[in-house]
Every structure is written in C-alpha cells, then in structure tokens.
C-alpha cells in the first residue's frame, strides 16, 4: 500500500515535470511561423481592410467609410470583368471536368497498352509555367497557327482568335482546359484506385456492361471528387490573371478583362490603392463563400 502511494506520487511528479518541460515547447515551435504569419499575412490583411475604407489625400490615409465600396457598386467595368470570368467558368469548368472524367476512365482501363506512358503525357501540361504556356498558345492561336489549320480541315474559315470578343473568351477557355485537364485527370485516377474492384466484379455478374458500370459505379463514386474539383476550379477561375494578361491584355473591348487583371491595373498602373483594396475584398468575399461551400462538401463526402 505504502509502496503503491509512493509509486503513484512519483508518477505524478514525473508527469508534472514532463508537462512543465513541455510548457514552452509548443510556443517555441510556433513562434517562427507566427512571426512571419503576423507580419506578412495578418497585418497586411487588416491594413488592406483599413485602406479599403479610406482614401489617400495629400499623402495621408483619410477614413471614408464605405465610399470605395459604393463606388465599386456602380463601377460597370468591374461587374463586366466579373461577368467575364463567370461566363468563362460556367462553360469551361464543366467541359474540362467531363473531359477529365472520360480520360481518367480510359487511362485507368486495363485494356489500354502503355498506360503509364499515356498517363505521363496527360501530366506534362501541369509542369509548364503559366506564362510560357500562354505564350505558346498566343502562337498556336495565330491566324496561320495550328488551331486554325485543324479547323480548316473541317472547312472552318480562319478565326482571329484574339481580336474578336467571343473568340477571345473561347481562346482563354481552350488554354485553360489544356493546362488543367491533366491535373484533374491525375486526381481522378487517384480516386479510381480507391474504388474496390469487387464492386465491378459484382456488377458484371449482374450483367452490367462497361458503359453501364461507368455511369452507375465509377461516376457516383467519383462524385465527391468532381464536386470538389469544380469548386477549386471555380475559385481558380475567379482569380484568373496570367492567361488574359499575356494573351489579350483583357481585350478586345474588355471581353477578357478579369477582376484580378482589373485590380492590377487599378492598383499598379493608376495607383488607386484604396479602390483596389475594395476590389480585392469583394473578390475575397465571393471566394470565401465558395471556400466555405468547399469545406462543407468535403465534410459531407466520405471519400477522404
């Protein structure tokens, strides 16, 4: 009994000692990150909020309340830019995801020869810098470029891709689809590996063909990933910048102007910092809503 007590006291003392020793450790591990986090992220975000509620007058920030946001509300150029990316994403994201789902299924097929090699090919576009690929597409989309050449085979007259408002939007969609389809294929392939093979075997016993299997097993099983991908792509497209910056500079006639390109011009070509910050926050709110949605979807799906 006596031994027991002393043993438990010793254990308690050891525990207390350990806890004391641990007391400082988490803070020390956190400190370096927290320093840069505060200086280069939290501080700037708060400052941006303050700047968006002010305007520069004679070199000093003067509080103006919601003035910048009111201005933004009636700024047709901003809403036009937002509408542009919405049009682009409403068309491009579904097309890309359908392509990705089809190609991922084909690349996963056991009957495909040189599977690893083909999968590699679909992966390659991810590795290329966005400016580099935009430059490539600016040439491929030339009047005498390969894309018009291929269309010519089907009797389509050459298109001035980057000079026509509708064609310029389509050109950006083509470029985006080329760059990101492979990325989505890679993720879908990962998801397919986690579908148990027995499910397919069981359905084959029940007499389901490959297309039936694809539609009623593969796609439903991948649905959480597809929803997730569509939210990520939507957020990415709302922040579209590099492709229109290189390919069209937002033209022709603002047909490919995007919110971020607009923000860049307002902030760093016209130096209206307050107004640019308001643009950034409106964008942030839109993206924040989508991110929340994404987290909810992620929690709803049980694929992870």
């Amino acid at each position, binding site marked *: 009994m006596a031994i027991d007590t002393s043993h438990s006291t010793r254990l308690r003392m050891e525990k207390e000692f350990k806890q004391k*020793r641990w*007391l400082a*450790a*988490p803070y*020390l*591990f*956190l400190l*370096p*990150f927290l320093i*840069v*986090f505060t*200086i*280069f*992220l*939290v501080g700037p*975000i708060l*400052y*941006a909020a303050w700047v968006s509620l002010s305007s520069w007058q004679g070199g000093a920030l003067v509080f103006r309340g919601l003035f910048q946001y009111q201005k933004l509300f009636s700024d047709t150029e901003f809403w036009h830019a937002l509408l542009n990316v919405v049009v682009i994403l409403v068309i491009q994201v579904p097309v890309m995801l359908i392509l990705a789902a089809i190609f991922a299924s*084909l*690349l996963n097929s056991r*009957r495909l020869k040189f599977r690893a090699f*083909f999968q590699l*090919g*679909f992966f390659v576009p*991810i*590795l*290329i*810098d*966005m*400016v*580099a*690929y935009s*430059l*490539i*597409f*600016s*040439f*491929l989309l*030339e009047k005498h470029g*390969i894309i018009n050449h291929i269309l010519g085979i089907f009797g389509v007259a050459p298109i001035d891709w980057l000079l026509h408002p509708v064609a310029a939007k389509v050109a950006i969609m083509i470029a985006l689809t*080329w760059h990101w*389809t492979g990325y989505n294929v*890679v*993720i879908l392939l*990962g998801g397919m590996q986690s579908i148990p093979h027995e499910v397919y075997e069981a359905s084959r016993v029940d007499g389901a063909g490959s297309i039936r299997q694809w539609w009623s097993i593969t796609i439903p099983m991948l649905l959480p990933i597809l929803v997730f*991908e569509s939210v*990520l792509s939507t957020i990415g497209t709302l*922040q579209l910048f*590099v492709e229109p*910056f290189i390919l069209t500079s937002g033209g022709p006639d603002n047909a490919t102007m995007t919110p971020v390109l607009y923000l*860049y011009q307002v902030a760093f070509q016209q130096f209206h*910092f307050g107004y*640019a*910050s308001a643009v*950034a926050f409106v964008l*942030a709110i839109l*993206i*924040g809503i989508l991110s*929340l949605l994404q987290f909810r979807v*992620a929690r709803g799906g049980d694929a992870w």
Partner: protein
Amino acid sequence: MIRRMFADLFLHAVVILGFIASVYPIYWMFISSTHSTEQILSGDHNLWIGSALAANFQALIHNTDVNIFQAIGNSLFIAVFSTAIAVVLSAMAGYAFAIYRFRASRTLFIVIMISLMIPSQVTLVPLFILMSHLHLINTWWAIILPALVNVFGVFLMRQAFAGFPGELLDAARIDGLSEGRIFWQIVMPLMRPTLSALAIIAFLASWTNLLWPLVVLNTSSAYTIPVALSTLENSMTIPNYGEVMLAASLATVPMLVLFLFLRRNFVSGIMAGFNR
C-alpha cells in the same frame, strides 16, 4: 470478339488523341525554338528540328531588355530558399498544433484556417506598401519574405502529424531527449514523404508566380522567370518567335528535370494539395 477489338481500337484512338493534344503544345515550343520567325509563321507546321537554334540563342544572349539566364538563376534561388524555410516553418507549426495541448491552440488554429480562405490578391497593395517602407522593392527579399508564410503547409503538416505514434515520442522523452531534438532527429526524418510533397507544391507555386513579382520587380536584373518571359515579347519591336520559344523552353527544362527525378513525389504532392 470483333466488337471487343473495335472497342479496344476506339479506346486507344481516343487516348492517343488526348495524349497528342496534351503534349503537342510543349513539343511545338521545343521545336519552334530551333526555327526562325519566318519558318514559324510560314504556316507549313514544320514538326522537326530546324536550323535556327544557334541564331535564336545568340539573339537571347544579346537581348539587352531581358536576361533569361539570370532570370532562371533568380527564380531558382528564390524558389529553393523560400521553399526550404517555408517547409520548416510549416512543419514546426503543424507539429505544435498536432502534438501539444496548449492555451489558445484552438483559437490560433482557427485564425490560421480563416486566413487560408482569403485570396492572395488582398495582400498585394499592403505588401507593396510594406516592401517600399522596408526598401525591399526590386530585391529577392520582397518575394521571399511573403512566401515564407505557407498556411496550407501548416494545415497539411498538422494532418500528417496527427497520425504520428505518440509512444515513439514518449520513448524518446524517457531516454532524456529534449523536445527540440525529438523533433529534428526523430520526427522530421520520418515525415520525409509529406515534407517533399509540400516542398514540391511550394516550389511550383514560387516558380510560376507572376503577379507579385511583376508588382515588386522593375529592373530586368532582378526578374524571375515568369516576369522575364512576360516582358520578353513586349520588349521586341519585331517579334522573334523562335527566341521567345527558346526562352520558354529554357524556363521549362528545370521543372521537367525536377519532375523526372521526383515523379512519385509530384503526384503525391498534387494529391496532397488537393485533399485539403
């Protein structure tokens, strides 16, 4: 039997078509870097190596507006340096959140997660003002310092450490190792797969970042690859397509080399970046 053969044929045909569409633009970039502008514009879609590589190379070397070789060096230094530190900081913070219980840990973690939802464009203006005050405009530091904050990395590392066997830590403590040594000598080496996945995500993000470097760099000697490429075409009075494509090719090669060496990590990096 014949139906099956047709199905196989169709399967391969579609995959090959998609494969060509994926690879062709990159192949074209490399091929065009060996052609002159006239050859590229002639519209006969030459698909084999041309004879103008040396000339394009000369043009690139003598280009006074953009020094692509220096830009590659700048980008490499910035990407390697900022990635290495960002990964270590994220790992340390993620470790603190996953392993220890401490005051305000929940609140802090929620604050960090909220900041993950805020798009980077919000901080463009304030960071620009901050960097001007610190006199860091046109320096590598202007790009490196904000890149040290990898919020997603903290999240990823916390998830990874959450499954770390606590008995291993306790055993090390009984052996008298300090908390710091446990982290560096026992925990970190075991986390190599997650660390390299995170490093690849951070490296790719740094290598392809255009907007922020475009804002803070305005002398060509400080340019990173994306900024150099984006100014190259604009700086030409007579566009030299071969030269532009050669520059783009040179900018792509380091990424391809990295991929060849770390293929497995790339895929897991992309999956990690996705499964948040």
